[in-house]
Protein backbone atom coordinates (compact mmCIF):
# COMPACT_ATOMS: atom_id res chain seq x y z
CA UNK A 1 0.00 0.00 0.00
CA UNK A 2 1.23 3.48 -0.80
CA UNK A 3 -1.26 5.14 1.54
CA UNK A 4 -2.64 3.77 4.77
CA UNK A 5 -4.66 6.44 6.52
CA UNK A 6 -6.49 5.41 9.65
CA UNK A 7 -7.25 8.32 11.93
CA UNK A 8 -9.48 9.18 14.81
CA UNK A 9 -9.30 12.67 16.25
CA UNK A 10 -11.40 15.33 17.95
CA UNK A 11 -11.05 19.08 17.34
CA UNK A 12 -13.52 20.93 19.50
CA UNK A 13 -16.90 19.54 18.45
CA UNK A 14 -15.52 18.24 15.20
CA UNK A 15 -14.82 14.51 15.06
CA UNK A 16 -12.60 12.95 12.42
CA UNK A 17 -12.82 9.26 11.70
CA UNK A 18 -11.16 7.98 8.55
CA UNK A 19 -9.85 4.57 7.64
CA UNK A 20 -8.74 3.96 4.08
CA UNK A 21 -5.94 2.48 2.07
CA UNK A 22 -4.90 3.10 -1.48
CA UNK A 23 -2.39 1.97 -4.09
CA UNK A 24 -2.87 5.12 -6.14
CA UNK A 25 0.23 7.35 -6.06
CA UNK A 26 -1.79 10.54 -6.37
CA UNK A 27 -4.71 11.25 -4.09
CA UNK A 28 -7.10 14.17 -4.13
CA UNK A 29 -8.90 15.05 -0.91
CA UNK A 30 -12.14 16.76 -1.85
CA UNK A 31 -15.13 17.79 0.20
CA UNK A 32 -17.06 20.76 1.53
CA UNK A 33 -15.49 23.44 3.70
CA UNK A 34 -14.87 22.16 7.18
CA UNK A 35 -15.12 18.49 6.19
CA UNK A 36 -11.65 17.74 7.60
CA UNK A 37 -9.32 17.84 4.58
CA UNK A 38 -6.71 20.14 6.06
CA UNK A 39 -6.87 18.31 9.37
CA UNK A 40 -5.98 15.01 7.67
CA UNK A 41 -3.08 16.59 5.84
CA UNK A 42 -1.81 18.19 9.04
CA UNK A 43 -1.94 14.86 10.83
CA UNK A 44 0.02 13.11 8.12
CA UNK A 45 2.58 15.92 8.17
CA UNK A 46 2.79 15.53 11.93
CA UNK A 47 1.64 19.06 12.77
CA UNK A 48 -1.38 17.64 14.59
CA UNK A 49 -1.62 14.42 16.56
CA UNK A 50 -4.54 12.03 16.12
CA UNK A 51 -6.06 10.38 19.17
CA UNK A 52 -5.55 6.97 17.62
CA UNK A 53 -4.85 5.36 14.28
CA UNK A 54 -2.16 4.29 11.91
CA UNK A 55 -0.42 6.23 9.16
CA UNK A 56 1.78 4.73 6.47
CA UNK A 57 3.10 6.44 3.38
CA UNK A 58 5.13 4.59 0.75
CA UNK A 59 5.84 1.72 3.10
CA UNK A 60 7.02 3.84 6.03
CA UNK A 61 5.03 3.84 9.23
CA UNK A 62 4.69 7.46 10.39
CA UNK A 63 2.29 6.99 13.24
CA UNK A 64 0.79 4.05 14.99
CA UNK A 65 -1.11 4.27 18.22
CA UNK A 66 -1.00 0.46 18.51
CA UNK A 67 2.80 0.35 18.25
CA UNK A 68 3.13 3.57 20.28
CA UNK A 69 4.99 5.12 17.37
CA UNK A 70 5.02 8.77 16.37
CA UNK A 71 7.79 9.64 13.94
CA UNK A 72 9.15 13.18 14.46
CA UNK A 73 8.03 15.64 11.78
CA UNK A 74 11.53 16.21 10.46
CA UNK A 75 12.05 12.52 9.91
CA UNK A 76 8.82 12.03 7.97
CA UNK A 77 10.43 13.75 4.99
CA UNK A 78 7.26 15.08 3.49
CA UNK A 79 6.97 18.10 1.23
CA UNK A 80 4.24 19.86 3.19
CA UNK A 81 2.49 22.99 2.00
CA UNK A 82 -0.13 24.23 4.47
CA UNK A 83 -3.24 26.13 3.47
CA UNK A 84 -1.96 29.39 4.97
CA UNK A 85 1.45 29.31 3.16
CA UNK A 86 3.41 30.08 6.38
CA UNK A 87 6.36 31.67 4.63
CA UNK A 88 9.28 32.56 6.91
CA UNK A 89 8.98 36.33 7.36
CA UNK A 90 12.65 36.88 8.14
CA UNK A 91 13.99 35.26 4.96
CA UNK A 92 13.69 36.53 1.44
CA UNK A 93 11.93 34.40 -1.16
CA UNK A 94 15.06 32.57 -2.31
CA UNK A 95 16.11 31.68 1.22
CA UNK A 96 12.58 30.56 2.01
CA UNK A 97 12.78 28.08 -0.85
CA UNK A 98 16.36 27.10 0.01
CA UNK A 99 15.49 26.51 3.66
CA UNK A 100 14.91 22.76 3.55
CA UNK A 101 17.83 22.09 1.20
CA UNK A 102 20.26 23.04 3.93
CA UNK A 103 18.87 20.40 6.29
CA UNK A 104 19.43 16.68 6.21
CA UNK A 105 19.11 14.65 4.07
CA UNK A 106 19.95 17.24 1.38
CA UNK A 107 22.48 19.09 3.51
CA UNK A 108 23.63 21.42 0.74
CA UNK A 109 25.91 24.39 1.20
CA UNK A 110 24.35 27.83 1.16
CA UNK A 111 25.41 28.42 -2.43
CA UNK A 112 24.23 25.07 -3.74
CA UNK A 113 20.97 25.39 -1.89
CA UNK A 114 20.32 28.77 -3.46
CA UNK A 115 21.15 27.40 -6.92
CA UNK A 116 18.63 24.63 -6.44
CA UNK A 117 16.10 27.01 -5.01
CA UNK A 118 16.33 29.16 -8.11
CA UNK A 119 15.41 26.18 -10.23
CA UNK A 120 12.44 25.41 -7.98
CA UNK A 121 11.27 29.02 -8.31
CA UNK A 122 11.58 28.72 -12.08
CA UNK A 123 9.17 25.79 -12.05
CA UNK A 124 6.45 28.09 -10.68
CA UNK A 125 7.43 31.00 -12.97
CA UNK A 126 8.71 33.13 -10.09
CA UNK A 127 12.47 33.60 -10.52
CA UNK A 128 11.87 37.33 -10.48
CA UNK A 129 10.74 37.21 -6.85
CA UNK A 130 13.98 35.73 -5.47
CA UNK A 131 15.16 38.78 -3.57
CA UNK A 132 11.78 39.93 -2.29
CA UNK A 133 10.56 39.92 1.31
CA UNK A 134 7.50 37.68 1.76
CA UNK A 135 5.32 40.46 3.18
CA UNK A 136 5.57 42.39 -0.09
CA UNK A 137 4.22 39.53 -2.22
CA UNK A 138 0.74 39.33 -3.68
CA UNK A 139 -1.48 36.42 -2.64
CA UNK A 140 -0.75 34.34 -5.71
CA UNK A 141 2.96 35.07 -5.50
CA UNK A 142 3.03 33.82 -1.91
CA UNK A 143 1.32 30.64 -2.93
CA UNK A 144 3.85 29.97 -5.66
CA UNK A 145 6.74 30.46 -3.27
CA UNK A 146 5.19 28.11 -0.71
CA UNK A 147 4.73 25.49 -3.43
CA UNK A 148 8.30 25.89 -4.67
CA UNK A 149 9.55 25.48 -1.11
CA UNK A 150 7.71 22.18 -0.67
CA UNK A 151 8.87 20.89 -4.06
CA UNK A 152 12.52 21.90 -3.60
CA UNK A 153 13.38 19.32 -0.96
CA UNK A 154 13.50 15.66 -1.98
CA UNK A 155 10.56 14.38 -0.02
CA UNK A 156 9.21 10.88 0.29
CA UNK A 157 5.78 12.23 -0.56
CA UNK A 158 4.03 15.54 -1.18
CA UNK A 159 1.22 16.99 0.94
CA UNK A 160 -0.32 19.99 -0.79
CA UNK A 161 -3.24 21.85 0.79
CA UNK A 162 -5.06 23.78 -1.94
CA UNK A 163 -1.79 24.63 -3.69
CA UNK A 164 -3.28 26.41 -6.69
CA UNK A 165 -6.29 28.23 -5.22
CA UNK A 166 -4.84 31.74 -5.47
CA UNK A 167 -3.14 31.37 -8.87
CA UNK A 168 -4.39 33.08 -11.97
CA UNK A 169 -5.82 30.85 -14.71
CA UNK A 170 -2.72 30.84 -16.87
CA UNK A 171 -0.45 29.99 -13.98
CA UNK A 172 -2.86 27.45 -12.59
CA UNK A 173 -2.86 25.64 -15.90
CA UNK A 174 0.89 25.72 -16.35
CA UNK A 175 1.78 24.81 -12.75
CA UNK A 176 -0.76 22.00 -12.84
CA UNK A 177 0.92 20.62 -15.97
CA UNK A 178 4.39 21.01 -14.47
CA UNK A 179 3.22 19.20 -11.37
CA UNK A 180 1.66 16.41 -13.41
CA UNK A 181 4.85 15.91 -15.39
CA UNK A 182 6.95 16.03 -12.24
CA UNK A 183 4.82 13.44 -10.48
CA UNK A 184 4.66 11.20 -13.51
CA UNK A 185 8.44 11.21 -13.93
CA UNK A 186 9.30 10.75 -10.25
CA UNK A 187 6.35 8.63 -9.16
CA UNK A 188 6.30 10.74 -5.99
CA UNK A 189 3.24 9.84 -3.86
CA UNK A 190 1.15 12.99 -3.55
CA UNK A 191 -1.88 13.97 -1.56
CA UNK A 192 -3.54 17.17 -2.68
CA UNK A 193 -6.49 19.02 -1.24
CA UNK A 194 -8.48 20.83 -3.93
CA UNK A 195 -11.84 22.29 -4.79
CA UNK A 196 -11.06 22.21 -8.52
CA UNK A 197 -11.96 19.12 -10.47
CA UNK A 198 -9.47 20.08 -13.18
CA UNK A 199 -6.63 19.50 -10.74
CA UNK A 200 -7.89 16.00 -10.16
CA UNK A 201 -8.20 15.39 -13.87
CA UNK A 202 -4.77 16.72 -14.75
CA UNK A 203 -3.04 14.64 -12.10
CA UNK A 204 -5.16 11.53 -12.74
CA UNK A 205 -5.70 11.36 -9.01
CA UNK A 206 -7.89 9.07 -7.01
CA UNK A 207 -10.51 11.06 -5.12
CA UNK A 208 -11.35 10.67 -1.47
CA UNK A 209 -14.57 12.54 -0.83
CA UNK A 210 -14.91 13.76 2.72
CA UNK A 211 -17.97 14.90 4.50
CA UNK A 212 -18.10 15.93 8.13
CA UNK A 213 -14.93 14.06 9.06
CA UNK A 214 -15.71 10.82 7.22
CA UNK A 215 -14.82 9.54 3.77
CA UNK A 216 -18.10 9.04 1.94
CA UNK A 217 -16.74 7.99 -1.43
CA UNK A 218 -13.48 6.90 -2.97
CA UNK A 219 -12.57 6.42 -6.61
CA UNK A 220 -11.33 7.88 -9.87
CA UNK A 221 -13.10 10.77 -11.54
CA UNK A 222 -14.77 8.28 -13.84
CA UNK A 223 -16.07 6.23 -10.95
CA UNK A 224 -17.37 9.36 -9.21
CA UNK A 225 -19.08 10.44 -12.38
CA UNK A 226 -20.68 7.05 -12.81
CA UNK A 227 -22.14 7.07 -9.32
CA UNK A 228 -21.89 10.40 -7.47
CA UNK A 229 -22.66 9.67 -3.83
CA UNK A 230 -24.10 13.07 -2.94
CA UNK A 231 -24.95 16.56 -4.12
CA UNK A 232 -21.49 17.85 -3.32
CA UNK A 233 -19.87 15.38 -5.71
CA UNK A 234 -22.30 16.40 -8.41
CA UNK A 235 -21.47 20.07 -7.94
CA UNK A 236 -17.79 19.29 -7.81
CA UNK A 237 -17.90 17.38 -11.09
CA UNK A 238 -20.23 19.86 -12.76
CA UNK A 239 -17.84 22.74 -12.08
CA UNK A 240 -15.49 21.38 -14.70
CA UNK A 241 -18.12 21.06 -17.33
CA UNK A 242 -18.77 24.60 -18.33
CA UNK A 243 -20.53 27.68 -17.15
CA UNK A 244 -23.29 27.38 -14.61
Amino acid at each position, binding site marked *: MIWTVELRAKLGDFGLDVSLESEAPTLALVGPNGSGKSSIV*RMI*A*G*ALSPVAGELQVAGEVLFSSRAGLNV*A*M*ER*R*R*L*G*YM*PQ*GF*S*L*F*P*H*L*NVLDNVA*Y*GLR*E*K*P*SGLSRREAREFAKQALRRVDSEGLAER*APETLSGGEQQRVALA*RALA*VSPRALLLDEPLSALDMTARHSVRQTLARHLASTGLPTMMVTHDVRDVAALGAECWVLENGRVVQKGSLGELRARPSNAFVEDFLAAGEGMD
Partner: protein
Amino acid sequence: MRRKPSGHSIGTLLAFTLVVLLVLPLVALLLSAGTASLSAGLSDPLFGPALALSLRTTALALVAIVVLGTPLAWWLSRSSTRGRMLVEALVELPIVMPPAVLGVALLQAFGRDGVFSPVVGDLGGIPFTETAVVIAQVVVAAPFYVQGAANAFREVDSSMMGVARSLGSSPARAFLRVAVPAALPGLCVAASLAWARALGEFGATLLFAGNLSGETQTLPLAIYTALQADVKLAVVFSLALAGLGGFLLLLLRVLPRKVRGIQ
Protein backbone atom coordinates in the same frame (compact mmCIF):
# COMPACT_ATOMS: atom_id res chain seq x y z
CA MET B 1 -17.29 77.30 19.62
CA ARG B 2 -14.97 74.64 20.97
CA ARG B 3 -14.40 71.49 19.01
CA LYS B 4 -14.62 68.18 20.80
CA PRO B 5 -11.03 66.99 21.17
CA SER B 6 -10.36 64.03 18.92
CA GLY B 7 -9.07 60.71 20.18
CA HIS B 8 -5.90 61.39 18.29
CA SER B 9 -5.13 64.66 20.00
CA ILE B 10 -5.92 63.23 23.44
CA GLY B 11 -3.60 60.32 22.72
CA THR B 12 -0.85 62.65 21.56
CA LEU B 13 -1.25 64.73 24.69
CA LEU B 14 -1.03 61.69 26.98
CA ALA B 15 1.98 60.27 25.16
CA PHE B 16 3.70 63.62 25.18
CA THR B 17 3.08 64.03 28.90
CA LEU B 18 4.83 60.76 29.63
CA VAL B 19 7.81 61.54 27.42
CA VAL B 20 8.21 64.88 29.18
CA LEU B 21 7.87 63.28 32.60
CA LEU B 22 10.55 60.73 31.76
CA VAL B 23 12.94 63.11 30.06
CA LEU B 24 12.53 66.16 32.27
CA PRO B 25 14.48 64.79 35.25
CA LEU B 26 17.39 63.96 33.00
CA VAL B 27 17.31 67.42 31.51
CA ALA B 28 17.26 68.90 34.99
CA LEU B 29 20.26 66.80 35.87
CA LEU B 30 22.06 68.00 32.78
CA LEU B 31 21.28 71.65 33.48
CA SER B 32 22.37 71.40 37.09
CA ALA B 33 25.73 69.92 36.18
CA GLY B 34 27.21 72.52 33.87
CA THR B 35 29.93 71.75 31.36
CA ALA B 36 32.86 72.68 33.59
CA SER B 37 32.09 70.03 36.18
CA LEU B 38 31.42 67.55 33.39
CA SER B 39 35.00 67.40 32.22
CA ALA B 40 36.31 67.57 35.78
CA GLY B 41 34.10 64.67 36.83
CA LEU B 42 35.08 62.41 33.98
CA SER B 43 38.75 62.66 34.95
CA ASP B 44 38.01 61.60 38.53
CA PRO B 45 40.03 58.49 39.47
CA LEU B 46 36.87 56.60 40.46
CA PHE B 47 35.33 56.95 37.03
CA GLY B 48 37.55 54.94 34.71
CA PRO B 49 37.73 51.67 36.65
CA ALA B 50 34.03 51.81 37.50
CA LEU B 51 33.09 52.33 33.87
CA ALA B 52 35.30 49.48 32.71
CA LEU B 53 33.90 47.18 35.36
CA SER B 54 30.33 48.12 34.51
CA LEU B 55 30.86 47.43 30.83
CA ARG B 56 32.58 44.12 31.48
CA THR B 57 30.13 42.79 34.04
CA THR B 58 26.99 43.87 32.23
CA ALA B 59 28.28 42.29 29.04
CA LEU B 60 28.84 39.01 30.89
CA ALA B 61 25.49 39.30 32.62
CA LEU B 62 23.76 39.94 29.31
CA VAL B 63 25.34 36.87 27.76
CA ALA B 64 24.33 34.76 30.74
CA ILE B 65 20.81 36.15 30.68
CA VAL B 66 20.33 35.54 26.96
CA VAL B 67 21.85 32.05 27.03
CA LEU B 68 19.91 30.91 30.09
CA GLY B 69 16.80 32.95 29.48
CA THR B 70 16.05 32.23 25.84
CA PRO B 71 15.20 28.53 26.29
CA LEU B 72 13.11 29.37 29.33
CA ALA B 73 11.26 32.06 27.42
CA TRP B 74 10.58 29.64 24.57
CA TRP B 75 9.19 27.06 26.96
CA LEU B 76 7.00 29.69 28.61
CA SER B 77 5.68 30.78 25.23
CA ARG B 78 4.77 27.27 24.06
CA SER B 79 3.63 25.53 27.19
CA SER B 80 -0.02 25.50 28.13
CA THR B 81 0.28 23.56 31.36
CA ARG B 82 -0.85 24.94 34.70
CA GLY B 83 2.74 24.98 35.88
CA ARG B 84 3.63 27.54 33.26
CA MET B 85 1.83 30.43 34.89
CA LEU B 86 3.36 29.54 38.23
CA VAL B 87 6.87 29.51 36.80
CA GLU B 88 6.11 32.76 35.03
CA ALA B 89 5.06 34.47 38.26
CA LEU B 90 8.03 32.96 40.13
CA VAL B 91 10.47 34.19 37.54
CA GLU B 92 8.96 37.66 37.77
CA LEU B 93 9.17 37.76 41.56
CA PRO B 94 12.70 39.23 41.82
CA ILE B 95 11.34 42.40 40.22
CA VAL B 96 9.06 42.97 43.17
CA MET B 97 11.87 42.69 45.72
CA PRO B 98 13.83 45.82 46.54
CA PRO B 99 17.30 45.10 45.13
CA ALA B 100 18.95 45.57 48.53
CA VAL B 101 16.82 42.75 49.90
CA LEU B 102 17.78 40.62 46.91
CA GLY B 103 21.36 41.33 47.90
CA VAL B 104 20.67 40.07 51.40
CA ALA B 105 18.94 37.04 49.92
CA LEU B 106 21.93 36.34 47.70
CA LEU B 107 24.25 36.60 50.70
CA GLN B 108 22.02 34.20 52.56
CA ALA B 109 22.04 31.81 49.64
CA PHE B 110 25.70 31.97 48.67
CA GLY B 111 27.40 33.55 51.70
CA ARG B 112 29.41 31.85 54.43
CA ASP B 113 26.43 31.48 56.74
CA GLY B 114 24.16 30.85 53.79
CA VAL B 115 21.43 28.29 54.25
CA PHE B 116 22.75 26.30 51.35
CA SER B 117 26.40 26.37 52.31
CA PRO B 118 26.14 22.99 54.07
CA VAL B 119 24.45 21.56 50.97
CA VAL B 120 26.41 23.09 48.14
CA GLY B 121 29.77 23.05 49.87
CA ASP B 122 32.09 26.02 50.10
CA LEU B 123 30.70 28.70 47.87
CA GLY B 124 32.05 31.31 50.25
CA GLY B 125 34.31 32.47 47.46
CA ILE B 126 31.55 34.09 45.43
CA PRO B 127 30.44 37.12 47.45
CA PHE B 128 32.49 40.30 47.12
CA THR B 129 33.99 39.25 43.78
CA GLU B 130 33.33 40.25 40.21
CA THR B 131 31.36 37.03 39.86
CA ALA B 132 29.05 38.30 42.58
CA VAL B 133 28.53 41.51 40.63
CA VAL B 134 27.51 39.50 37.58
CA ILE B 135 25.20 37.23 39.58
CA ALA B 136 23.48 40.20 41.18
CA GLN B 137 22.93 41.74 37.76
CA VAL B 138 21.61 38.50 36.31
CA VAL B 139 19.11 38.00 39.12
CA VAL B 140 17.89 41.57 38.92
CA ALA B 141 17.70 41.85 35.13
CA ALA B 142 16.89 38.36 33.85
CA PRO B 143 13.16 38.56 34.66
CA PHE B 144 12.76 41.45 32.26
CA TYR B 145 14.44 39.55 29.45
CA VAL B 146 12.54 36.34 30.07
CA GLN B 147 9.15 38.04 30.07
CA GLY B 148 9.88 40.13 27.01
CA ALA B 149 11.33 37.23 25.08
CA ALA B 150 8.42 34.96 25.98
CA ASN B 151 6.08 37.60 24.64
CA ALA B 152 8.05 37.83 21.41
CA PHE B 153 8.07 34.06 21.00
CA ARG B 154 4.32 33.84 21.55
CA GLU B 155 3.86 35.63 18.24
CA VAL B 156 5.83 33.00 16.34
CA ASP B 157 3.23 31.12 14.32
CA SER B 158 3.20 27.43 15.21
CA SER B 159 2.14 26.48 11.70
CA MET B 160 5.35 28.12 10.46
CA MET B 161 7.34 26.10 12.97
CA GLY B 162 5.57 23.00 11.63
CA VAL B 163 6.69 23.81 8.11
CA ALA B 164 10.29 24.21 9.29
CA ARG B 165 10.15 20.83 11.01
CA SER B 166 8.61 19.28 7.95
CA LEU B 167 11.44 20.66 5.83
CA GLY B 168 13.88 18.65 7.94
CA SER B 169 14.76 20.84 10.92
CA SER B 170 14.97 19.22 14.33
CA PRO B 171 13.11 21.15 17.04
CA ALA B 172 16.38 22.74 18.11
CA ARG B 173 17.29 23.78 14.57
CA ALA B 174 13.80 25.04 13.82
CA PHE B 175 14.09 27.08 16.99
CA LEU B 176 17.42 28.57 15.93
CA ARG B 177 16.66 29.01 12.25
CA VAL B 178 13.06 30.18 12.44
CA ALA B 179 11.76 31.05 15.91
CA VAL B 180 14.74 33.13 17.01
CA PRO B 181 15.18 35.18 13.83
CA ALA B 182 11.43 35.66 13.43
CA ALA B 183 11.23 36.94 17.00
CA LEU B 184 14.50 38.85 16.80
CA PRO B 185 13.20 42.41 17.06
CA GLY B 186 11.26 41.51 20.19
CA LEU B 187 14.20 39.59 21.64
CA CYS B 188 16.46 42.59 21.09
CA VAL B 189 14.10 44.92 22.86
CA ALA B 190 13.87 42.47 25.77
CA ALA B 191 17.65 42.14 25.86
CA SER B 192 18.11 45.88 25.80
CA LEU B 193 15.70 46.32 28.71
CA ALA B 194 17.55 43.69 30.70
CA TRP B 195 20.91 45.15 29.84
CA ALA B 196 19.75 48.62 30.84
CA ARG B 197 18.46 47.24 34.12
CA ALA B 198 21.77 45.47 34.78
CA LEU B 199 23.71 48.64 33.98
CA GLY B 200 21.67 50.64 36.49
CA GLU B 201 21.74 47.92 39.15
CA PHE B 202 22.90 49.13 42.55
CA GLY B 203 21.26 47.73 45.68
CA ALA B 204 21.87 44.02 45.23
CA THR B 205 25.44 44.65 44.09
CA LEU B 206 26.22 46.83 47.13
CA LEU B 207 25.09 44.12 49.51
CA PHE B 208 26.25 40.99 47.72
CA ALA B 209 29.43 42.22 46.05
CA GLY B 210 30.46 45.17 48.17
CA ASN B 211 31.77 48.50 47.00
CA LEU B 212 35.48 47.99 46.38
CA SER B 213 36.91 50.40 43.87
CA GLY B 214 38.44 48.58 40.92
CA GLU B 215 37.03 45.26 42.03
CA THR B 216 33.29 45.42 42.63
CA GLN B 217 32.56 49.12 42.33
CA THR B 218 30.41 49.45 39.24
CA LEU B 219 29.40 52.84 37.92
CA PRO B 220 26.15 52.96 39.94
CA LEU B 221 28.15 52.16 43.09
CA ALA B 222 30.66 54.85 42.23
CA ILE B 223 27.73 57.18 41.79
CA TYR B 224 26.43 56.18 45.20
CA THR B 225 29.84 56.76 46.71
CA ALA B 226 30.13 60.12 45.02
CA LEU B 227 26.60 61.01 46.11
CA GLN B 228 27.73 60.82 49.75
CA ALA B 229 30.53 63.26 49.15
CA ASP B 230 29.65 65.47 46.25
CA VAL B 231 26.30 65.51 44.54
CA LYS B 232 27.76 67.33 41.52
CA LEU B 233 30.23 64.54 40.92
CA ALA B 234 27.48 61.95 41.23
CA VAL B 235 25.43 63.87 38.71
CA VAL B 236 28.30 63.94 36.25
CA PHE B 237 28.83 60.20 36.60
CA SER B 238 25.13 59.64 36.12
CA LEU B 239 25.09 61.72 32.99
CA ALA B 240 28.00 59.71 31.64
CA LEU B 241 26.07 56.54 32.44
CA ALA B 242 22.97 57.91 30.76
CA GLY B 243 24.95 58.95 27.70
CA LEU B 244 26.58 55.56 27.42
CA GLY B 245 23.30 53.78 28.06
CA GLY B 246 21.45 55.87 25.53
CA PHE B 247 24.07 55.22 22.90
CA LEU B 248 24.07 51.47 23.42
CA LEU B 249 20.29 51.31 23.57
CA LEU B 250 20.09 53.11 20.26
CA LEU B 251 22.65 50.69 18.86
CA LEU B 252 20.63 47.70 20.07
CA ARG B 253 17.65 49.04 18.11
CA VAL B 254 19.47 49.80 14.91
CA LEU B 255 21.54 46.62 14.86
CA PRO B 256 18.83 43.97 14.49
CA ARG B 257 17.48 45.76 11.43
CA LYS B 258 20.86 45.52 9.77
CA VAL B 259 21.29 41.90 10.83
CA ARG B 260 17.97 40.82 9.43
CA GLY B 261 19.13 41.94 6.03
CA ILE B 262 15.65 42.46 4.65
CA GLN B 263 14.92 46.17 4.62
